[in-house]
């Protein structure tokens, strides 16, 4: 039993790494997606909406399979970890697009009007009036997105990334203890998610005070 712990710790590290990179990619794509959804050009709005419907409307596992197994057929060669980060990041970006857009459109129209009437441009209004307020609103719901995404990292076991879920499965064969193996993985997931949740709450409180 003890022999498996170092492997689990290493796997937990891979899960953390996956989560961090996927969050970063998701936030970037979410910001791009939300800008597209709010563009004044219909075509760009359509592209933003299409991105959201496609990636929220299909299983993340299928998206990963298409990228990892189907990718080489169209000239995209990725190792399993890269495919995991990119696949999950694009998926998370679709959810984050909607979260960010929701927070932005929740800002009172009167704020935009007040900013425009003193002569601020559309960009200045967004940058100095809307976004600072929307950021505060989006911290919690983005936390929910990140929570879902951390759990979704378990899917990359299916493309053989050696993260927590994969590691648990791998040691069932040698230990014959599926209950314990999955329990260890579950506890490690819980710790990662708990710490992330605390970090999000802290950020949220900090944003409210300032």
């Amino acid at each position, binding site marked *: 039993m003890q022999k498996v712990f170092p492997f689990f710790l290493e796997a937990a590290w891979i899960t953390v790494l996956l989560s961090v990179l996927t969050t970063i990619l998701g936030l970037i794509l979410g910001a791009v997606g939300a800008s597209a959804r709010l563009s004044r050009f219909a075509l760009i709005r359509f592209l933003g909406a299409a991105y959201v419907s496609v990636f929220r409307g299909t299983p993340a596992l299928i998206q990963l399979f298409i990228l990892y197994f189907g990718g080489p057929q169209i000239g995209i060669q990725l190792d399993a970890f890269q495919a995991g980060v990119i696949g999950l990041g694009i998926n998370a970006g679709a959810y984050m697009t909607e979260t960010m857009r929701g927070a932005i459109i929740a800002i*009172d129209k*009167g*704020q935009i*009007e*007040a*900013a*425009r*009437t*003193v*002569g*601020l*441009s*559309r960009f*200045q209004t967004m940058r*100095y*009036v809307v976004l*600072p*307020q929307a950021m*505060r609103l989006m911290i919690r719901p983005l936390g929910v997105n990140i929570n879902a995404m951390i759990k979704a990292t378990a899917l990359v076991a299916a493309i053989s990334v050696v993260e927590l879920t994969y590691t648990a499965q791998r040691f069932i064969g040698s230990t014959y203890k599926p209950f314990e193996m999955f329990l260890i993985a579950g506890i490690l997931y819980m710790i990662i998610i708990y710490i992330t949740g605390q970090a999000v709450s802290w950020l949220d409180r900090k944003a409210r005070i300032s």
Partner: protein
Amino acid sequence: MNDQGDHMTDQKPFVDIQHAQKSYGALEVLKDINLQVQKGQIVAIIGPSGSGKSTLLRAINDLDPLTGGEIWLEDKQINKNLPHRQYEKHINLVRQEIGMVFQHFNLFPHLTVRGNVTLAPKMLKGLSDADANKLAEEQLDKVGMLERIDYYPSQLSGGQKQRVAIARALAMNPKVMLFDEATSALDPELVEEVNLVMKKLAEEHMTMIIVTHEMSFAESVCDRVLFMDQGVVVEEGPPEVMFRNPKNDRTKEFLRKHLAGQHR
């Protein structure tokens, strides 16, 4: 009203609204409105809810663009036909010259009073922090809000918020001030402090267009009163005529109902 008003009436209008027309789909909310305001003049717009007062006021700085007609500020047409990018540039400059005060204040809640007042001068006039602070202090002093300069809007009463909103508009040194029911959202005991600030602006000969439900205030500060109903200017004239001796039946009816309501 004042001696200045009289000799100025034969000058070219400062704000000139010609044949303003506005439709939302099939609903025509402004029907061929004409309004000329001289420099330093104070015009009140009264009328029942839904008559188009806000729409007209908001057309002046293009928050609600007209579907027909022209609006001029001095020798510049405000609602010019220009390609999008050029129009944005043009309108951002025009808006710097027109201050607007809203019923619900619309202060920026994430900024202090100071931040609210200095944001536009810093961004648009390139003022240094020191100069912007000095400007904010002057404007806030004028509206009696200097002691609250480091407060957040959420820590202020409605009357205080509105006075800060006025200071924010004044900080851009506008040529005209527009007020859309600036005191309608206030508790009755807070109305006077805002009215006093507006009176002070009147004494400084600020050109103002004021949409209001407060007839006694309109009577005491305005040079001219317009009564609007269903998208048209039904009657206009000096306050003593409009409030004491209106000619149009709709004006009489509105004032009768309105004044009756106010006494309750």
